[in-house]
């Protein structure tokens, strides 16, 4: 059953590489976060207690509710950001690149996890997420899309942490979530200010700093 969630996770990544709308990006992120919630919940189902529920629920609240809401309200609506993402390369090439990288990631993950006691599928899914998140950051122009790319990357890292099953202590996971939330919060403020001072929310506007 865990694999089902991982497959869906990969599918969401492919969709991310296909779609061209900012809101769809956000929806993919929400979907991924909900999937993460279920992936974290899975092994806990057998010994359910209030204490074990704290982490998954925090993930759900922070990643699936607070962050998307904040981004939607404060950034997308308030700034009236145009709904299309602006890309540096053609969408088709982007998808092609993503698919090829995904294949490469899967094959290499399969190779390197052969002798380690690690399930290759979540591992590869997590790594694809990191790679595609990075591509989103590199090949997209809008700052808000960069933030979503960063979040997708973080989701991948989170999944990676679960895939190893060598759990980071509970408090640290919470600390990480808090950090990410504050990062997104600060980035949101920055985007707000950038769009008011630069009259564009694209990276191309940010070229003042040179040598």
């Amino acid at each position, binding site marked *: 059953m865990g694999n089902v969630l991982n497959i869906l996770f990969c599918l969401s990544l*492919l969709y991310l590489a296909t779609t061209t709308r900012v809101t769809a990006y956000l929806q993919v992120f929400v979907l991924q976060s909900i999937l993460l919630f279920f992936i974290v919940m899975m092994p806990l189902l057998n010994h359910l207690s209030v204490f074990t529920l704290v982490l998954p629920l925090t993930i759900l609240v922070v990643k699936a509710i607070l962050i998307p809401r904040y981004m939607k309200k404060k950034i997308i609506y308030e700034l009236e950001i145009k709904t299309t993402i602006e890309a540096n390369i053609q969408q088709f090439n982007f998808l092609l690149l993503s698919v090829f990288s995904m294949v490469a990631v899967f094959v290499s993950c399969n190779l390197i996890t052969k002798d380690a006691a690690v399930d290759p599928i979540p591992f590869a899914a997590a790594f694809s997420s990191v790679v595609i998140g990075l591509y989103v950051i590199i090949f997209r122009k809008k700052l808000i899309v960069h933030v979503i790319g960063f979040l997708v990357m973080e989701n991948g890292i989170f999944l990676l942490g679960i895939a190893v099953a060598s759990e980071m202590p509970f408090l640290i996971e919470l600390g990480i979530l808090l950090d990410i939330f504050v990062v997104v919060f600060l980035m949101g403020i920055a985007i707000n200010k950038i769009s008011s001072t630069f009259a564009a929310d694209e990276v191309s506007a940010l070229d003042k700093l040179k040598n």
Partner: protein
Amino acid sequence: MEILSKITIYMVFIFAAPLFMGLVNKLKARLTGRIGPSVFQSYYDLRRLLRKETIYANSASFISRMAPVVSFVSILFAGMILPVSFTRPLISFNGDLILFAYLLGLSRFFQILGAMDIGSSFEGMGAAREATFAVFAEPIYFFTLGSLAFIFGRTSMYEIFHSITLGDPSFLVFIVVASISVFFLMITETSRMPVDDPNTHLELTMIHEVMILDNSGQDLFLYQYSAYLKILIYATFTSNFFNPFSMAENYMIGFLVYLCVMLVLICCLVWIETMLGRFKMKSIPQYLLFAASIGILNLLIYSFFRK
């Protein structure tokens, strides 16, 4: 006896093809608030076409005469390979999934040839578009079915579909995912809504319809009929992924599952056609690639999953 029942099923399948289209059109009309044509309208259309005279353009060569027939016959043969519900199809051997793909390819090839033969620039454009999208559509088929063949180690369509079981919950997702990508394939191959609008006659945006602008009478009948057949073939193809739900090879349940899946498919198709606008011509390849990459993903996951 066995062969007789197979032939019966096949005949029913062939004759039900326009009905499928009729149902789609009717439902679509109802959803948009119109009464719509009768469910059997497709049959009436076909009958009308059959009665009409076939006219050829002055520039038409023998290819124009040949193309509709070859196209239609190869579709008929493709129908023979496709397993409907439980029965072993009329033609079934190891490797028939490739024949299936190439029969459909042959049909398309002759349609394109026929369109180009007349030398009209419109039809040439349509042919070019059809060929371009076919390039992106083909991988969907091969990655989806290929991954299945790879996983089960079978190369016959019938055996592949019968190897899918519900033993592992992962297959559930797999079924859904694979059927989604085949659904994409169906929309592309049969030139339905988000890819091509069958109702417009605006030349700039047409793909399939523009190719058969110059055909009339019996030729048009053959083209139309092959279009109806094609969509039913793909729909059945999609429904085959849901075979394992009819558990213990019970024919009655199998048939019911088949009908249910068909109904769901019709609803999906109608829903998509009413809800979505046409994609931009430019962005179609990326959606097709998306569907193909689903197949690739399946291949990746299951080849590692099974080790």
